């Protein structure tokens, strides 16, 4: 693999991490959705690039999937839902944006440390990619746990999954990547539908545990 | 031949304690009366009482059960057997090995057990008072007695009364702290066990103060006679126990001749007299204590006994 290939792949992966940070930074739903669409787009690009440099045509399927489904369909659908359910546009954070960003920094550092312990013998592209992928995943999780808003949590989950796809495609010659990405898209679809079905306006939280307690009398 | 002689001696011993028992009681009463400047009943009075009681018919309370009727015989049997196992004028009695000092105490214990039961049999309040107080006293007196036995047994290296007595007679004893403690404790226990002042008053019929009398309140006739006799026997037993353990002088060894035996008997009667006199003096010079002071009195005895035993355990020289 030549240096330029490596640099481009590296660049795209880095961009994904950056975008994850941007997502953390957003405090309005629409903006968040837009950033996520961008996130998915960059993912599609990087997957396509991987397909090109690994000349693994099946990866193009994944790329296309990411592009159409995540970058277009889902954001639109979520827009609709927001309108339908009249979810107000503010994103409620558990911790403020600033602390969240700091935590994100910490997580990225952590993933770097963990991944760079991998011996030099391993394929450098894999190493860097994995490091970025791991940080994307962690940032996604961070988003899920710091945002109270259902939609933003879904977005968090999806960017987490983008990280997965990034890792999977980065893993040269890994079988089943396409299947996995498909499976995940279905999963995400389920979640979105679920939100829509259960009318989860604000957050996962209010699919009430209080109800559970009332009916089951578990709380003492 | 020797066996027959031993049998004879044992028999004499049993009869002796049986016959002397009322006399001792009478003697104590007489001395007490004298000390109180009273004429007092004659020495033989207890015998007369016993005989009269035996002749009288028994008036049995309605609630009384079969237990109530056999208890007097049980008590008498237990006390008599116990008393006849204590060497009085001669050690090495034929059957002395059949029960050691612990067993003798246990025999007295069974006597008391049944007496307390009899006290509860008729179902009167006084019987209950008597029984419950009696067992309370016993529950402290018996352990104290066991502790005393431990001390003596550890000194004499045996719980066998004859052996102990022989050892006590021998010069090997010497003067020991533990012995003194044991003697003191033994006297306290003896007073309690025989229901003498200050623990109990054999002469009282004041409801709230009596213990022994309350238990036997419902007895009459021959039953009462047996119980009185057993009480007298018990007194003799304790006096002769103290005598044979602490003043074993003129206590004749096994296989002694007639003359020595006569001497021994004389000495024994003298000891009884002294013991009775001292008891009378003590009783007249002290007031009865409240029932709930008794535990402290007996607790002191128990502590003394325990202390003596501990001394023995820690070093043989005490």
């Amino acid at each position, binding site marked *: 693999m030549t240096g330029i290939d490596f640099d481009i792949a590296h660049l795209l992966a880095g961009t994904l991490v950056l975008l994850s940070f941007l997502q953390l930074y957003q405090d309005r739903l629409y903006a968040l959705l837009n950033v996520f669409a961008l996130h998915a787009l960059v993912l599609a690009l990087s997957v396509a690039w991987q397909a090109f440099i690994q000349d693994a045509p099946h990866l193009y399927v994944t790329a296309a999937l990411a592009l159409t489904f995540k970058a277009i369909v889902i954001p639109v659908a979520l827009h609709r839902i927001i309108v339908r359910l009249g979810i107000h546009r503010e994103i409620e954070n558990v911790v403020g944006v600033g602390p969240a960003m700091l935590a994100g920094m910490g997580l990225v550092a952590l993933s770097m440390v963990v991944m760079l312990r991998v011996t030099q013998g391993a394929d450098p592209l894999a190493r860097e990619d994995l490091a970025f992928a791991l940080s994307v995943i962690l940032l996604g999780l961070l988003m899920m746990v710091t945002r109270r808003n259902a939609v933003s949590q879904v977005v968090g989950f999806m960017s987490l999954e983008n990280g997965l796809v990034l890792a999977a495609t980065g893993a040269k010659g890994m079988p089943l990547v396409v299947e996995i990405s498909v499976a995940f898209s279905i999963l995400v679809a389920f979640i979105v539908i679920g939100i829509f079905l259960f009318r989860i306006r604000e957050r996962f939280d209010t699919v009430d545990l209080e109800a559970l307690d009332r009916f*089951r009398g*578990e709380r003492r | 031949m020797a066996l027959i002689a031993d049998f004879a001696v044992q028999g004499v011993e049993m009869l002796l304690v049986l016959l002397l028992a009322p006399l001792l009681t009478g003697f104590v009463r007489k001395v007490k009366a004298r000390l109180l400047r009273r004429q007092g009943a004659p020495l033989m009075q207890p015998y007369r009482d016993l005989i009269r009681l035996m002749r009288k018919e028994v008036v049995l309370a309605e609630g009384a059960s079969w237990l109530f009727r056999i208890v007097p015989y049980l008590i008498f049997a237990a006390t008599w057997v116990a008393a006849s196992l204590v060497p009085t004028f001669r050690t090495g009695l034929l059957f002395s090995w059949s029960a050691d000092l612990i067993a003798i105490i246990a025999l007295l214990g069974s006597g008391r057990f049944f007496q307390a039961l009899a006290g509860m049999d008729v179902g009167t309040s006084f019987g209950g008072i008597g029984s419950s107080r009696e067992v309370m006293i016993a529950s402290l007196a018996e352990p104290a007695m066991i502790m005393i036995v431990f001390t003596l047994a550890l000194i004499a290296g045996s719980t066998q009364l004859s052996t102990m007595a022989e050892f006590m007679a021998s010069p090997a004893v010497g003067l020991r702290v533990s012995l003194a403690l044991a003697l003191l404790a033994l006297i306290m226990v003896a007073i309690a066990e025989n229901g003498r002042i200050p623990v109990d008053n054999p002469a009282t019929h004041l409801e709230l103060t009596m213990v022994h009398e309350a238990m036997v309140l419902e007895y009459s006739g021959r039953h009462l006679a047996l119980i009185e006799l057993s009480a007298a026997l018990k007194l003799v037993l304790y006096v002769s126990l103290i005598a044979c353990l602490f003043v074993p002088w003129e206590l004749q060894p096994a296989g002694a001749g007639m003359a020595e035996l006569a001497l021994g008997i004389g000495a024994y009667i003298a000891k009884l007299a002294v013991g009775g006199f001292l008891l009378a003096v003590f009783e007249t010079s002290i007031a009865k204590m409240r029932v709930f002071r008794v535990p402290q009195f007996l607790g002191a005895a128990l502590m003394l006994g325990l202390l003596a035993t501990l001394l023995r355990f820690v070093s043989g020289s005490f």
Partner: protein
Amino acid sequence: MRSDALAAVLLIPAFAAVVLAAMPGYRITARLNIVATLATFISAASLFFFRPQPGAYLLVDDLNSTFIVLTTFVGFTTSVFSASYIGHELEIGRLTPTFLRFYHAMYQVLMFAMNLALVANNIGVMWVAIELATLTTVLMVGIYRTHEALEAAWKYFILGSVGIALALFGTILVYMAARPVVGEGLEAMVWTTLVTRASAFDPALLNVAFVFLLLGYGTKVGLAPLHAWLPDAHAEGPTPISAVLSGLLLNVALYALLRFKMLLAVNPAALAPGPLMVTLGLISLVFAAFMLYRRRDIKRMFAYSSIEHMGIITFAFGMGGPLANFAALLHMTMHSLTKSAIFFAVGHVAQVKGTQRIADMGGLTETNPVLGWGLVLGVVAIAGMPPLGIFMSEFLVVSSTFARSPGLAIILVFGILVGFAALFLRLNTIAFGEPRGPTAKAKASYVPMFVHFALVFVAGIYIPPALVAWFENVAKLLG
């Protein structure tokens, strides 16, 4: 013949799923369900005798063959139970025929998924299968469409999906670790290849991989603190599903974890997986033991007891060594049988009493003697009392641990005792005392329950040498 049996294990359920989805009518579908599971069980049992060669995707070895047989067997008995259970649900109208078809189809899909996860020789396939199983159970948990059921299903779904993601990342990392050694492509995901070459893998990658797999599959195993979905899913879903969840799905997830543990065990430079599993196991045990005290819902209570036992098993595997591994395998088997049997009993109890509130049950041994004593027997068994099987495994675990590291054994014993006390505290209110609640006789088939108990009892007294040899091989395999 050889590979046929293996194929059957997978194809029968898949096919049955399609058929059942299409077929109306309660009686016939229930029967068909039973028949299908029975057939699956038979073909699985035949794997004992004809073992196919491991392929690129499928594998049958000592470790999983026992699991397959166990899974298919419990699946069979559960289907028998579910026939009588679902009948009652239809009568009282908690389920409509449409949902019933769905239910039976899903049941078969679940069986398929679990079998696939067990026989998969490819870590990717294994992952897919387990996720499939998870999603199916999510759907079945929500089948009653009540508020609580949907809530539980949703919770399960979300937490499950995150677990899925973590597990996948772990799988990818394993592949990355394997690739330089094994070479690109399919081979680098075939377990049999991996385990032979793992010693040369990059330890750092393996470590990270194991962390993700532990958390990912650990969520499915229900180890505290990843357990949150488990109690509600058990409590709100149909009881047959609770039985399958506790009895089988947890095992399957743990089995996956074991595979990767073996992978790490081969590599000397990698961190020892033992301590991690021991820690998680003890946490789950003690935590669940305390949680048992405040439970008022009978199914939730037994769900927590499942967490407790999963903790014990994980702990034992973490300790390692022939004794502990043997004990863990035995415990796994016994727990599946016992716990599913308990849920059979609980299902009927809940139907008789018309509620799952423990406070509304009472004097069960008076009103429904068979059911009541069955439940007592089950609790006695699950609490680890002789002469039932769990006592033996707990005996082996505790005694072998105490000699090696007393501190851990003390914690273990403490947890067991606390859980024991809690279980019997509740049992007393359910089974004894003055009868409470409705006392109608249950229309139930007690056969599956007592078959399980019979097996557990026999295992407590006598384990056939063949099985022993089996377990011992596996114990050695696990190191």
